[in-house]
């Protein structure tokens, strides 16, 4: 499978990364090199092999259903590029 410029632009759009024409052009051979190389995994016979889900056997824990944190609104907002009236502010999304 190899990627072309249109595919690179589609991936960038999905990843929400703006790229220029030039960058898209440059990324085509770069990504193809890497993807071509990882495709050697296709030679491995993995029939009857389960995909890895946890490297070390571990069980999910339950805890009491109680509030353990909160009341830190100002801390949460402190690093926001734009915070107003106790909220994160973003450009207008509804016309």
């Amino acid at each position, binding site marked *: *499978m190899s*990627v072309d410029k249109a*595919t*690179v632009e589609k*991936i*960038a*759009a*999905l*990843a*929400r*990364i*703006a*790229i220029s024409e030039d960058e898209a052009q440059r*990324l085509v051979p*770069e*990504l193809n*090199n*890497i*993807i071509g*190389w*990882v*495709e*050697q*995994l*296709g030679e*491995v016979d*993995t029939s009857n*092999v*389960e*995909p*890895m*889900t*946890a*490297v*070390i056997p*571990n069980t*999910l*824990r339950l*805890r009491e259903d109680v509030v353990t944190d909160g009341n*830190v609104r100002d*801390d*949460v907002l*402190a*690093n*926001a*590029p*734009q915070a107003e009236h106790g909220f*994160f502010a*973003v*450009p*207008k*999304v509804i016309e």
Partner: protein
Amino acid sequence: MSELTDLGVKALRDGIRSGEFSARETADAFIAQVAKAKSLNAFLVETPDHAIAAADAADAARAKGDTLAPLAGVPIGMKDLFCTKGVQAAAASHILEDFKPPYESTVSQRLWDAGAGMLGKLNMDQFAMGSSNETSAFGNVVSPWRREGGGNAPLTPGGSSGGSSAAIAARLCPAATGTDTGGSIRQPAAFTGITGIKPTYGRCSRWGVIAFASSLDQAGAMARDVTDCAILLEAMAGFDPKDATSLDAPVPKWEAGLNADLSGKRVGIPKEYRSDGMSPEIEALWQQGIDWAKDAGAEIVEVSLPHTKYALPAYYIIAPAEASSNLARYDGVRYGQRELPDGAGLQDMYAATRAAGFGDEVKRRIMIGTYVLSAGFYDAYYTQAQKVRTLIARDFENAWIECDLLLTPTAPSAAFGLGETTDPLSMYLNDVFTVPSSLAGLPAMSVPGGLDKQGLPLGLQIIGKAMDEQSVLNAGLALEQRAGFTARPEAWW
């Protein structure tokens, strides 16, 4: 008395306890070294006040006759990947520039609780993605090491924990935290002639460690010798309910358990690690390590890890896939930088913010990850890689029938020159010996083995069974005692 900055963690801890010198003198000595070493670019932020506060607390506790905490008054470096309350944690990326976490990571908090102080935040590859430190948004770290007769060509300190490795090798700090996703503690340790251990996945809490690839990311200890690594790791490790993958197991007394006698231990030599292209110097070092292990009483056995060659390609699907998901949080809304072109809407803001904030390697990996997870390709790439990962873990399980530890070189070469490796794929190959154990979540460490012809350090890697850090540390100690590695870079910075 030798210079305080020549002492390691154990010597500093013991000297402060006995009153041979004060914690304040110790902190001041390291702070002065950090301030003088700007040309190494190892520290992104210096926090002398933090180190001094911990030192003064240690001295006050001693004056009162209190029992000192395990690391009381020992100043350390903190990789920039760890969230530190009120102190910038940027993962060496522009997108998080000026981010001051309102909370402390579990690992760093445990170190402060143990009495350690912070000298500053250490430079690294951006979001821990890189093997040379060249992906840092704030300029690469320069290794304190130089080639003999090779002029002053700047060398890489390795990556991603390159600020940590350089700072320790240059005696700017006696120890530092590192994180290892595919070799980011072990390869920089090997490149700078220091020691570094990545424990079993889940030993150290990931809470507050800026995420790269969550199923692989693991914090660990970097220091000048094995004992110091054991001391630091003991303070860092431990169960944390805030990390769902944290191991609910007691932390062994690794320092007290150190024992360099390897009698009864079987050390496996994986034949697949011996590639045709292996440099003769690396091969000679490996043989030397085998002889040292034998001398320490170990039985040497050849073992096979048949899926070794597939570890790197599997890693470069799994790690980017997890990264593309983890790094989706950088959207210019909640923290970090925002790029808002005139008249841009929300979607344009996301795309512009991420284009401006992420470096090229980070973008490359996010895009690879997005591609392998996208509709129609998920099974062919991601599921297949996770199946191969199962086979790689099974290879190790089978090897443990025949041996207790594995011994390999840490990296395929000594440190290379900055700017020498420009092709992403060639850079990835640096991790060929470290990635398989990362994929299997196993504890592994690098210890210095000797110098190559250019006078640059080379490292030996020991891989152990899950939860068996003690055997890894013990084998490391046995090699360390026989290597007698005392070389250090001459101060030019």
